[in-house]
């Protein structure tokens, strides 16, 4: 863990009860200045509740919170100026048009008329919404709504941007566009905290990922480390133009220690507990007139990590509750 002083967000043992439902259970983590931090977890894990606590829409039952080095537990107002918030549902004003919505949001952060007009124009341009700037927000498509909501979240140039499921319900092209915009923002120095269900999104955007299951933080790490942790097996895929099927028993006899998972005419999948030397394998195939056209190491995806970690955690909790 880094130094709390240069953390953008430092949460310690945050807990939130709704009556007897524990939505967030002693969650501690740090988000470093300038990083993209992803909160991943199944429905009802407590992601939105955590964002609400971090931004001031919910009060933690217990725990403490530091934002940009300032202790803000119980008085989050003083940090709200640095925060931009993009909620899971677009909540701009349907009766105002795009430009008016942006200008209104800017004014809430004390921006003056000239400055907010200029900034609104700049963002509408950047988000490709200039053509619909005068259209009522209520008449926007879902993708346009999402983009304008993000634009409204960054209009005052916040240092930390919170996004709750920024691309849920958005088509592939728009989602990619939004991810590109977020990556640019981050490169310009904005710290980003986002929640998502999409593994792919976390993989593309996030420097570090936290897994939340049933209100509990089960893992926080970089993508590389998370993947490495589940990589207890090495998988290699070999492709050839044909004839591999007939080699089945020959391969198994020649390499008794390796596990050949699938062998088809054009493809063979080898799984081992140790890094596999490929040269002898390829040489043997070549001796039998088979040209290996491709050798590929298959790494576990974040999805494998997610399933393994959350699956384990869910199973463990089921055990615990059935025991108690």
């Amino acid at each position, binding site marked *: 863990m880094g130094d709390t002083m240069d953390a953008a967000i430092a949460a310690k043992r945050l807990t939130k009860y709704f009556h007897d439902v524990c939505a967030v259970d002693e969650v501690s983590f740090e988000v470093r200045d300038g990083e993209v931090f992803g909160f991943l977890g199944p429905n009802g894990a407590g992601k939105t509740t955590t964002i*609400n606590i971090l931004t*001031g*829409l*919910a*009060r933690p039952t217990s725990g403490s919170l530091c934002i940009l080095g300032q202790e803000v537990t119980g008085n989050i107002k003083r940090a709200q100026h640095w925060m931009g918030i993009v909620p899971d549902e677009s909540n701009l004003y349907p009766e*105002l048009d795009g430009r008016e919505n942006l200008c209104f949001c800017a*004014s*809430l952060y*004390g921006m003056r008329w000239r400055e907010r007009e200029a900034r609104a124009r700049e963002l509408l341009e950047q988000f490709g919404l200039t053509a619909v700037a005068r259209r009522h927000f209520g008449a926007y498509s879902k993708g346009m709504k999402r983009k304008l909501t993000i634009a409204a979240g960054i209009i005052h140039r916040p240092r930390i941007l919170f996004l709750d499921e920024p691309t849920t319900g958005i088509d592939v092209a728009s989602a990619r566009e939004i991810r590109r915009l977020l990556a640019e923002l981050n490169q310009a120095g904005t710290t980003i905290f986002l929640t998502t269900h999409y593994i792919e999104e976390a993989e593309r955007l996030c420097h570090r990922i936290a897994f939340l299951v049933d209100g509990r933080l089960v893992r926080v790490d970089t993508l590389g480390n998370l993947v490495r942790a589940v990589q207890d097996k090495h998988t290699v895929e070999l492709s050839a133009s044909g004839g591999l099927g007939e080699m089945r028993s020959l391969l198994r006899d020649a390499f008794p220690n390796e596990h050949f998972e699938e062998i088809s005419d054009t493809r063979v999948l080898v799984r081992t507990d140790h890094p596999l030397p490929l040269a002898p394998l390829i040489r043997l195939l070549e001796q039998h007139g088979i040209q290996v056209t491709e050798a590929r190491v298959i790494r576990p995806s974040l999805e494998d990590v997610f399933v393994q970690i959350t699956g384990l955690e869910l199973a463990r909790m089921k055990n615990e509750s059935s025991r108690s």
Partner: protein
Amino acid sequence: MTGWIAYYSILRKDMRSYYLKPPNISWGLIFPLAWTLMFFVRSETDVDVRTLLPGVMALSILFGTTSMLAVTVTFEKRGRSFERLLLAPISLELLMWAKTSGAVFFGAVNAFVPVVLAAFLADLSGVIWWQLVLAVILVAVSSAFLGLLIAVCVKEVFEAQTFSNFFRFPMVFLCGLFFPIDQLPGLLQPLAYLLPLTYGADLLHEAVQSSGRFPVAVNLAALVTFCVLLFWVSLHRIRQSWIG
């Protein structure tokens, strides 16, 4: 400065989105007119316009302010756009004052519609204008805060409207605007003293006809106390249940 830019902007948006819409403007004009006419038609003897003026003004303010908070607060809470305001770096006090200012302004303007009408029908030279203006502002603020309290205690817009009526109609009959308080049944009299409008109505009577029952200072103190209390309870309620 951030606070005041936000304040002005919220007020301006509410004015444009809600108050200055044609139905509201016509409501603001028709409502006081209808009340005035109703009193004229009802009474057989020659009515003294100045006797009726405080009552009509108070009603215009009460109905003009309380009903609007259901829209500017409950409706926006329902649509979640209110969260945007809660997340802004301005104090909750200033935010809620911004959300109620529009209603105060709207109610106060409504109150002067019957005054303008009365000016054509009667001699208003004996009116103590500074007291009248002060009374209008205080009645408008206390009514707006009553509307606010109702708006933050309910979830749905229709609930806010139902509750408003639950308070408004008894208040109109108990506050001494149309029946003097000492002519009310004995059991209801103490209740009258618990209503802000009682003191507002008295202040209006004093300003228009010099016929108030309580000293002006008592009325002012009572109204200010009600305003502070209603605002404080509303804010407490928001802190407790909206910032979950």
